[in-house]
């Protein structure tokens, strides 16, 4: 009886500590959608930076917000456990999220030409993420 209680207590403690969780396909689709959203919006912002249609303060602050969103997805995927069938998709999602975050962080100091290239990369990332979540 004592062992059973200890086992239950340990189980509850581990659960309360929020140990790593198994990533489902549905959750991964949500992450792809989040990456797609940040990348698509970042592409709009980058296009405006490349054409001088925004302010530097706005590009820095809002670009930073979108980068943080993508970075949060990357961090979440890094800590998640997944089945063997999802491993490749999870790795792709992490690479996409990380590259979207890095591009958006670069936007602040990018020249107009570089901002145009960032916009195209973000559009491609958005399309890839959209395909994977479908």
């Amino acid at each position, binding site marked *: 009886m004592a062992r059973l209680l200890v086992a239950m207590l340990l189980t509850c403690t581990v659960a309360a500590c929020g140990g790593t969780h198994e990533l489902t396909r549905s959750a991964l689709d*949500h992450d792809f*959608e*989040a990456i*797609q*959203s940040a990348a*698509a*919006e970042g592409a*709009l*912002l980058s296009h*405006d930076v490349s054409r*001088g*249609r*925004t*302010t*530097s*303060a*706005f590009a*820095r*602050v*809002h670009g930073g*917000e*979108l980068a943080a*969103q993508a970075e949060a997805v990357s961090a979440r995927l890094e800590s998640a456990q997944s089945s063997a069938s999802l491993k490749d998709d999870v790795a792709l999602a992490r690479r996409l999220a990380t590259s979207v975050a890095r591009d958006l962080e670069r936007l602040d100091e990018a020249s107009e030409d570089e901002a145009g290239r960032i916009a195209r990369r973000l559009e491609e990332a*958005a399309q890839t993420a*959209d395909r994977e979540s479908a």
Partner: protein
Amino acid sequence: MNKVFAIALGILAAIGGFVDIGDIVFNFAAGAAFGYELLWAVVVGVGAIITYAEMCGRVASVSGRAVFDAVRERLGFSVGMVTLVAAQIVNLLMVAAEVGGVALVLQLLSGLPYRALLLVAVLGLGLVVWFMPFGWIERVFGYGGLLLLVFAVGAIKLNPDWGEVGSGFVPHVAGTDTALYFYFVVGLIGAATVPYEVYFFSSGAVEERWTPKDLGVNRANAMIGFSLGGFLSFALMITAAALYFPRGIDPSKLGSVGLGAEVPLGAAALVIALVGILFAVGGAAIDTVLSGAYNVAQFFGWEWGKYRKPAGAPRFTFAWLVLVALGFLVVLTGIDPIMLTEYAVIFSVVALPTTYIPILLVANDRAYMGRYANGRWANVFGLVFLVVICAVAVAAIPLMVVTNMGQG
């Protein structure tokens, strides 16, 4: 001419108080999630607020007392206390969300750190409420809020499918995620009918010294002012629907709203939009703070009103200072103001019946209102919208849970 001016002032006040951070967030998010399919929900919300704001203004004009005062007097201490507690909890959340919203907009304009701008926002709020006369608050923040019309220009520039826009005004269930769809219905109606709007409207009527001969002005203020606020809400939703919905973008930041003006119209429109949001959200913060202080002062029978100097209404002044300070502490915890806005709107929906049922009862009380009590049409619309309000109040929390706060 004075009457026209009085109407203009009231219209501006209605715009400034109506389009707050909740309206901005929910209308933009709804457009991005469902395209034009939820425009009809804005119409329902605007209809409800026009109906009940007119009642509140009429109660204040006839009795010389704001509606909260009248509720306590006619319906008793217990009913008044329930209404007061519910309203104050929502007011506190809204003040915190609006102060955070002001700081976010200042950050998007200046690039300065958010936490430092929180202090600027709360100090600015305190100074404006302390020193600026009531009429000037209406003018400054009302005119400033009109800058949001840039979204109407942008929405047209985005060349939406106007046939689809038109079909969005017809109530129907759209999309595959029904729970999420109705979550936004609840949010849109809730954002349009947050309790502080009617309390502020009626207290403002007393501040402006309205009498029964101002009932025409009251009706014009309510109908035209809130309709214009609804028009701005349409512009926000159509912008998001035309720009973000086709791209699958989920606009979870206030910057996403600014981008909605920038993409079709450029940098100048971005700045105009952000300044417009600053005045709208700042004006709403002032309205909410004053509404909270009005409620407490009227319930306990204290002297109140901006027309008295702070020394002439010390407990009223203390009440709004406490609300500002508490709102600042809430947002200082680091909670995301946009997320806080969503919680505030959804929880305010739950409290809506405690606000609107007493208003309907007082407005119908012939012993109190005499020949100015509700007529047939006021009661028809009042009851119809009350049923809607009660339905969304019941559905709000379950939908919030099922949809994970609209995340799907």
